[in-house]
């Protein structure tokens, strides 16, 4: 069963209880940020801060409004972090759809940061390993819901079977449309095969306004590197090794005795020192 998290952005009141729950459950120390004139806790995710409520200030019809969104790992079906990671077992896709990071196996290369279309993983400056939301894999493994879901006071967050949540999300989007939000819809980007974090947005055609990328895909340079380039490298390596080997088998080494001299016939060398014959 694939599990998912549904975020109904219309119900978020910005209380940040989920941020606190995440920090507490994962036992992360809070590092002070800078105050930048926003209600948002931090400008971005950090290696020890995996769940960020974004207070997106948007001008709409002459009024400023907050488009709330919860930012964290999306647990993509086609995960760019996983595609980019060279270390076996450092990024593990669980049977329930969670993309889990196993820090013992992480080598700290940071490729997952570049592979992720949502710019989610972060390297710790001390351990030099990559961190992000684990969808509370240590809770879901024993049948508990993730900490953020558990704590949310408004039912903005729901956890459950993905297909079920997708239906709920569509229903909710339908209600919003009926209420006059013609652009309401579900955020479940297909470029990464769909995500296990789903959103209901009032302005679904402009997810950027919520700080979500419009058409996320695994970056093409990453696909090139992990796809055709691997074939090319393998081909060039074995082609050259076999080419050299068979060149030797067919032609053998260069031999001054047999192979005739270059056009400019330089004077023959003396046989022994001071032999000027």
């Amino acid at each position, binding site marked *: 069963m694939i599990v998912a998290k549904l975020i109904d952005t219309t119900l978020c009141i910005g209380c940040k209880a989920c941020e606190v729950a995440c920090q507490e459950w994962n036992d992360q120390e809070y590092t002070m940020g800078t105050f930048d004139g926003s209600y948002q806790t931090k400008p971005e995710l950090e290696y020890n801060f995996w769940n960020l409520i974004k207070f997106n200030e948007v001008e709409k019809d002459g009024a400023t409004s907050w488009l709330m969104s919860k930012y964290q790992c999306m647990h993509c079906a086609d995960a760019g972090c996983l595609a*980019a*990671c*060279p*270390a*076996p077992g450092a990024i593990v896709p669980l049977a329930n759809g969670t993309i889990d990071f196993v820090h013992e*196996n*992480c*080598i*700290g*290369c*940071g*490729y997952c*940061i*570049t592979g992720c279309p949502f*710019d989610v993983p*972060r*390297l710790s*400056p001390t351990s*030099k390993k990559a961190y992000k939301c684990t969808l509370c894999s240590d809770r879901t493994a024993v049948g508990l819901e993730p900490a953020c879901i558990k704590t949310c006071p408004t039912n903005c967050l729901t956890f459950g079977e993905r297909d079920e949540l997708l239906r709920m999300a569509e229903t909710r989007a339908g209600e919003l449309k009926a209420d006059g939000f013609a652009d309401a819809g579900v955020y479940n980007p297909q470029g990464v095969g769909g995500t296990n974090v789903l959103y209901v947005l009032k302005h679904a055609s402009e997810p950027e306004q919520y700080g979500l990328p419009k058409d996320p895909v695994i*970056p093409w*340079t*990453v696909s*090139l*590197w992990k796809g055709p*380039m*691997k074939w*090319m*490298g393998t081909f*060039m*390596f074995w082609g*050259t*090794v076999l080419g*050299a080997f068979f*060149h*030797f088998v067919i*032609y053998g*080494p*260069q*031999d*001054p005795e*047999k*192979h*005739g*001299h*270059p*056009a*400019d*016939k*330089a*004077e*023959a*060398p*003396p*046989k*022994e*020192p*001071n*032999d*000027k014959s």
Partner: protein
Amino acid sequence: MTNPEAEIRIPRFDAYERVMHWMAALSFFYATLTGLALWSPKLYWMATMLGGGYHIRGSHPWVGIVFAVVMGVMARRWAKGMRLDADDRVWLTRMHKYATHDHAALPPSGRFNAGQKMLFWTQLAATLALFLSGFVLWFPEWMPRSLRLLSIAAHPLAAIGSITSILVHVYMGTAAVPHSMRAMLRGYVLPEWARFHHPKWYKTWRASNDV
């Protein structure tokens, strides 16, 4: 009979050049193995062999820096002599003659033949690309995303190019051209070798040495 004690030796690479060359080779070899381990989970066993992934993630960039510095030293020493002359340009168009041992059809080479010169320039260009893109990949937290996306494809691409050309180079230096290894290990060659492989170089040597 030629008395080995009395054989004529033409100095080819001095100690500075030999040390420089083998430092490039060793650092390149290490960077290649660790780099391949960082390339693909299938080649990760190379990392296991060399102390584990976490360790090689730390060492690969430093060894890369050593390699880049040595290549800088090599460029200072050899760049001038590696310029292609008119004969070299003709040589390149007849490379197949070289590969099939039809040496009589080739224009004479100087201290380095055109193939060696091309290897040198290829390596130098690849080193520059590897150095710049490698630096970006070293510090993903501090680098803009666009640069990282470029580097993550450019670094392995440059590596494929340089590894392939080094494979050819190693074949030439070990099996295909007998006695060239002596030049790089001991520093000298015999006159017959010089005359066959590098006639113009041999002539200059002859002219300035009374043997």
